[in-house]
């Protein structure tokens, strides 16, 4: 066996001590008629072969394009110190700090994570940690129902679609209701949550609302009227949940500032690799009064019997191993190592560095906006944004695809993720961060102008749809796109 220490002699000695003559005897409890058929799997591979295979597979991913893709997961610079420390076996091969006397490393780093996230969000209590932004948002919404003993939440249509869908899955299961708040269709607030609609929905006395969930920046990159929305929610006796992006909190108003009761979001931008979607970090925090509703681990400061300062898991009566069916959630294994990554990242980059990261992203995004507008792809919405925005591109899907072969990953074809919203058809969601270069922006704009130009020349009025259909069937045969 690849990593085991047992020699044939070791095995023989153990069998003898047990008093059996073969390992098979130890499996006697498995009923004979239920024993497994042979494993139809390949033979073992040595590390030489394995590394060759893995290197080849990794090489079949293309990560060398100039990428403007964000949409909930962001390319950021990660200082080298982060991974070197994460690779310390003492951190990554330990587990939940059940024995605090020999887990102070994990415990103190979790406490520091809680503290730093509390600073960023302004929340009093941060739990460490949840699976990702989507499940943290679902848990946040569930919290509002437990806290208010109401059964309905309102979720903005501009919350990340994956979060909305996950929340929906969790809510269906729990026999709770999640309704969608529409967006403003036109005018200066286009693309942000429709506050008038929200007010109407909150006014439905037969269906009292436990919580209102909105994202800032929202999925389309736009800044939302969070303070106003929070006031409306509170006026209706509902809690207000802010879905936030942690890097942006270096410069944007914090959830506490605009009165959110719960903050949640995706921690990936804090030093965690993109890795095709995970492991990421679900951020979840709340006001002090909600502390007994919050799911997940909490570490507190205390002393040992000698009076030395020390850290320990606390308020565990919310957790499944103690509370079982009455627990705040079933979460057990969490994303502690990702929380550690976020802590090291934040400490390494520092508050001023984080501000620079957020601001540089905003600066590059403004350059990108100008370059794309000149290339013929103006913004779709007029409102303020930080570093991500939607642009209108005729035949977005086809153009996006063409740009791939020119080395540009032109953000997200929004219709592929939100297929049912006509206002978002023919739009790309693009983002810039501190690692986006002027050269990449130039390449994108140049190639885009060229493709838009060609599109104008080739596609006569009325042909647009069939063109899209064509490109879809082309995709099918190449097995590529969604």
């Amino acid at each position, binding site marked *: 066996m690849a990593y085991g220490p047992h020699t044939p002699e070791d095995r023989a000695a153990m069998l003898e001590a047990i008093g059996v003559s073969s390992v098979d005897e130890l499996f006697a409890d498995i009923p004979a008629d239920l024993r497994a058929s042979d494993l139809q799997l390949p033979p073992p591979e040595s590390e030489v072969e394995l590394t060759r295979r893995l290197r080849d597979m990794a090489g079949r991913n293309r990560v060398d394009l100039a990428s403007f893709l964000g949409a909930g997961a962001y390319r950021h610079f990660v200082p080298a110190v982060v991974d070197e420390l994460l690779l310390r076996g003492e951190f990554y091969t330990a587990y939940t700090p059940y024995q605090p006397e020999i887990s102070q490393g994990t415990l103190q780093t979790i406490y520091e994570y809680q503290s730093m996230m509390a600073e960023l969000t302004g929340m009093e209590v941060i739990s460490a940690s949840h699976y990702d932004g989507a499940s943290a948002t679902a848990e946040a919404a569930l919290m509002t129902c437990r806290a208010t003993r109401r059964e309905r939440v309102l979720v903005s249509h501009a919350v990340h679609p994956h979060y909305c869908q996950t929340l*929906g899955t969790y809510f269906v299961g729990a026999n709770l209701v999640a309704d969608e708040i529409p967006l403003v269709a036109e005018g200066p607030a286009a693309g942000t949550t429709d506050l008038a609609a929200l007010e109407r929905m909150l006014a439905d006395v037969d269906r009292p609302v436990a919580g209102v969930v909105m994202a800032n920046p929202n999925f389309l990159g736009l800044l939302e009227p969070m303070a106003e929305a929070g006031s409306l929610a509170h006026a209706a006796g509902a809690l207000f949940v802010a879905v936030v992006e942690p890097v942006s909190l270096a410069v944007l*108003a914090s959830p506490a500032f605009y009165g959110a009761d719960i903050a949640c979001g995706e921690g990936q931008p804090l030093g965690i690799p993109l890795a095709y979607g995970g492991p990421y970090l679900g951020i979840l925090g709340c006001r002090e009064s909600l502390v007994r509703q919050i799911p997940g681990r909490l570490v507190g400061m205390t002393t040992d019997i000698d009076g030395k300062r020390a850290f320990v898991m606390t308020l565990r009566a919310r957790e499944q191993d103690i509370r079982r069916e009455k627990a705040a959630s079933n979460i057990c294994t969490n994303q502690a190592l990702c929380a550690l990554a976020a802590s090291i990242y934040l400490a390494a980059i520092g508050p001023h560095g984080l501000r*620079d990261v957020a601001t540089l992203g905003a600066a590059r995004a403004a350059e990108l906006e100008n370059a794309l507008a000149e290339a013929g792809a103006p913004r779709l919405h007029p409102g303020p944004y930080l570093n991500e925005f939607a642009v209108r591109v005729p035949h977005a899907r086809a153009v996006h695809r063409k740009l791939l072969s020119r080395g540009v990953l032109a953000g997200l074809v929004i219709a592929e993720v939100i297929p049912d919203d006509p206002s978002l058809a023919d739009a790309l969601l693009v983002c810039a961060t501190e690692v986006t270069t002027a050269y990449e922006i130039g390449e994108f704009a140049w190639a885009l102008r060229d493709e838009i130009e060609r599109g104008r020349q080739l596609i006569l009025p009325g042909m647009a749809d069939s063109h899209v259909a064509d490109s879809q069937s082309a995709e099918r045969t190449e097995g590529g796109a969604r």
Partner: protein
Amino acid sequence: MTAAGDRLGPTLFERSRPGRGGGKVPHPPKDTLSRIPSDQLRAEGPNLPEVAEPELTRHFVNLSQLNYAVDSGFYPLGSCTMKWNPKVNEWAARLTGFASLHPFAPDELAQGTLQLLWEVEQWLAEIAGMRAVTLQPSAGAQGELTGILMVRAYHRSRGDLARTEVLVPDSAHGTNPATASMAGFATVSIPSAPDGGVDLDAFRAALSPKTAAVMITNPSTLGLFESRIGELLAAVHAAGALAYMDGANLNAIMGRFKPGEAGFDVMHFNVHKTFSTPHGGGGPGAGPVGVGEKLLPFLPVPRVLREPDGLFRLERPGERTASIGRVRSFAGNTGVLVRAYAYLRAHGASGLREVSDDAVLAANYMKSQVTGVLDVPFSRHCMHEFVASSATLKAQTGIRTLDVAKRLIDYGFHPPTIYFPLTVEEALLIEPTETEALETLDAFVQALRSIVDEAHSDPDLLHSAPHSSPVRRLDEATAARQPNLRWRPMTGRQMPCPD
């Protein structure tokens, strides 16, 4: 300070001085944010620590050394399977092609990862004897929720709305009842029989047209194979309910028992247990779910599909309408699954079976050695772990399992899981795993023996243990009564810094 001096240190906040750190990111143009309305901006920056990289590094290096970990010693934490985490897996997950791939990357840019995910699904399906596997759930508990939501969807799809209960044996892990609640079901607890298995009569009695599913952990949390599994499954299916297997202990039975073949309808895997991905101080893991034919339509979106031309793609939104939907963003904890894939390939069919054989062998060996030192309530062969108990010791000496555990720390070992499962008094759940050398197993048993002697000769030594760790027993009561959950500069309430 590693090799000398006091080993506790200040927090990052106490190490912070205004103006320290920096040098990571170029400075942005000054007026960049002027285009954003000022009420959207933060008035004051967050009060994050400002430390230079040398201090930062020492902080985390020294903290790490306060941890006990698999990489430093024997960690027989029952039910958690603290096996060796191969280093090549860490290397693999960090390959740029894997690590830098955006989750919304078009399929054609993601063929390497998509193939890997697809292959992991095939391997897991074969190991479990299941029809298909989803890799999305982020941990075992989320896998449970996914599985039970599929059960719910299945019954509803048949118009069967009466099934509101989930049966859970009393020895089950806390996630099982918690999951049932999250999925809107009432939990019915089933008692254990004296042999540690599920009490078949009680079980049959609890089954009814209200039963949506039964969640069985097999091998159970007592480390025992459920020998009446055939009868149990027959009864479940006869009642029109579905059988969920909590597969967290699959590491004991690979190549020996395939749950799907035996009749389970759905199960989850814990890749951070069975397939050696690191526990990360609490996570991340991954909790794939395997299903049989019945639940196939309900798998969460998106699945990974292989086209006839051999290329791979993710399911598109709306492509499979019966699905329970998403349980998280994007495709899953892919970085964890890369590690699992490396483990699967390194072992192959023969190696995986050997993993289970060696895990069971080591556990039975330890059990044979611990018998006579502590109580060992179940005498039949165990699987990958076994329960011991200090009940007799406590009766004789007043020494509790907690004291034994704390004293093990002084002997250089991580204690086993204690007071779980709840059905055994003064329980210690001991799981040696397949990657521990015989000498290590012997040394641990020897330590237990010495501790039992000490319990008689010098009980105070145990009451006050541990003695050699960076801190000693903690004041957990104050921690809970006056929770201090975040650093607050300059308030009277917080504890003094040790410096």
